[in-house]
């Protein structure tokens, strides 16, 4: 074997050993450098963007004005910042809303797809099968909403006190049904009850277009006000 041949063999051997080893050293060194750079960026708070964080819905109609009103109502009703007292008296609702009945109702217009009306028989507060079906359908479709409003009313027939009590019973019955049907530990934190009697924010006939438990072929003002308006509110406060 010539010297040249042996030198060539040695050269090939060194090259063969060096090729994968140098590649490995280069690649791992490069990765190590990138890891260190990422760690430095993370420490400096300039790291790459991460996946979005899970959060409750806060949709377009949640204007600052709406949120202000919602906060007042929710605080007054004990849902936020309170001691867990539920239920707003009609007068309280009027005072916290500090607005006319029609403006109050207008707050809920954007929630048409997220709410409905549970209609009661005259002077009654018991829920029928169609009523509970509407409640279940709407409540189970919470999605990202944080608050569920139950706003019960009574039609103007009868005394103010009677209607106030009737609307309270209607709201409470909706709440009882929710408690019985849905084992939801957040119920007391997310369901706000308001009973307005006949005194405040009577519904106009435009609400006939909403999802209702009553006869779809009949809709008059007194019918839709013998009701509990229910809706999820997709706003965070």
């Amino acid at each position, binding site marked *: 074997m010539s010297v040249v041949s042996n030198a060539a063999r040695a050269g090939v051997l060194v090259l*063969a050993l060096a090729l*994968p080893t140098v590649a490995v050293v280069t*690649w791992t060194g490069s*990765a190590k450098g*990138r890891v260190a750079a990422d760690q430095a960026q993370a420490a400096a708070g300039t790291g790459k963007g991460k996946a979005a964080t*899970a959060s409750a819905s806060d949709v377009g109609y949640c204007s600052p004005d709406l949120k202000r009103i919602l906060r007042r109502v929710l605080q007054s009703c004990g849902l936020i910042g309170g001691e867990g007292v539920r239920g707003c008296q009609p007068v309280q609702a009027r005072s916290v809303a500090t607005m006319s009945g029609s403006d109050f109702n207008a707050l809920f217009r954007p929630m048409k797809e997220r709410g409905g009306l549970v209609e009661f028989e005259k002077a009654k507060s018991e829920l029928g099968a169609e009523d509970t079906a509407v409640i279940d359908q709407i409540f*189970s479709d919470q999605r990202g909403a944080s608050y569920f409003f139950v706003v019960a009313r009574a039609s103007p027939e009868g005394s103010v006190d009677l209607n106030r009590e009737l609307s309270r019973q209607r709201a409470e019955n909706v709440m009882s049904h929710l408690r019985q049907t849905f084992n939801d530990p957040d119920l007391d934190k997310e369901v706000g009850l308001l009973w307005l009697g006949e005194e405040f924010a009577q519904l106009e006939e435009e609400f006939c277009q909403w999802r209702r438990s009553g006869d779809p072929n009949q809709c008059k003002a007194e019918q839709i006000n013998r009701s509990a308006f229910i809706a999820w509110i997709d706003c965070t406060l």
Partner: protein
Amino acid sequence: MQRKPHLYTILVLAGAALGLLFAGFSTYDFARHLDRQVHSVNCSFVPGLTAAEAVSDCHITMMSHYSSVMRETVWGGVPISLGAMSVFVFLLLFAVELCLTRRQEDPRATGFLALATLLPAGTSIIMGIIAFSKLDAACKLCIGIYFSSAVVLVGALCLWRRAQQLRRAEEIGRLSPREEGEGGGPSSWAGGGPRRAASSSSDESGMPRGGQAPVGWGYVAGAFALGVVLVAVPAAAYVALAPDHSVFIGACGDLVEDKDAYGVMVPTDRHKGGVPSVEVLDPLCPACRAFESRLEASGLRQELDRWAILFPLDSDCNWMVDDRKHPGACAISEAVLCAGEHAGDVVDWAFAQQDAIKGAAASSGEAARKLARERFPDLARCIGSATVKAKLNKSLRWAVRNQLPVLTPQVYVDSVKLCDEDIDLGMEFALSRMIARSRDGSLRKRGAR
């Protein structure tokens, strides 16, 4: 004896060079992921000349449990393609050696080369079977390696066969004069036959041939040892120089509220004495299925007592996503919740039927409900009910309460997050350490729940 490479040697050289190219690209892609980031990988029969792809069969193969060894020792393990690189380098080296030392007609040296080519060929067969039977993925780079392995095997076998034939021909040539009474016995053979090269000064084997004597067994052993060194040195360098990923274990957050206040966690794979773990799961998410597959292959499954929180990436029920990323995921999640203790059965079915379910549910989730009802008639009334929809919603609300990222899968071992970067390649490395730390009580930070 010729120094110029024979056609078969050229075949071996070409196959080894091609194999080195494919294995090199594959190892490069693998090693890039050591930085814990997501990268595109080369997936082409002409690597380097076409754009790398983010999701491909090569990606699936690379992320699988079978792409590397020592996965619990090194983050991601040592890629098998690195071994392939070294083996092809060795074959290249040995083929050149045969030329330089004029051993292309040496049956023993060429036999060793043929034997050496069985390693990449055998490995290719095994990996091919795994790829098609377990991964259902045809990785082009891998096919390139399989092809190269076949080329070197065929080249080496032909070279060896030719060397044997030449030897037999020489033996016949030598025997013929003796049979005809022309020879003078064995000692005369040592003196050299008519075709013996003048340069062959000695032939200790006593077998006169046209060139040198066959290489000794010492030479073969040396070549084998060199092959081992060529494989071991780059692998050792890889193990020694890979970034230290253990510093990230336990540093990716934990559950703010690990209690199941809503009663929405479902058992998916319970093991008594296992470390409790919670997986944020979408039953129609391919990454969740791949994670399940890796976990199964890793052997770590039995170490965990697994529960799942449903987090379907489907805007039908999940307000946190803009579109129906996994159509039907809400409906199948309902089925999982309905199954309660048997949730694992529904998850297994959903993983197996992912593509079919998503295809059927492309226009409406109701089609997915129908499939689930058909497969699990006992759950038919529950699936789609208001109660289970509310429960699924609470599952999503649980994610909100814990301020989890909107992605799946997420795995929490003993309430401590397995880093998202450790979900695929680094799973065995990170998960085995988290399990060990949980068992010795050092996983959760002091003062944590």
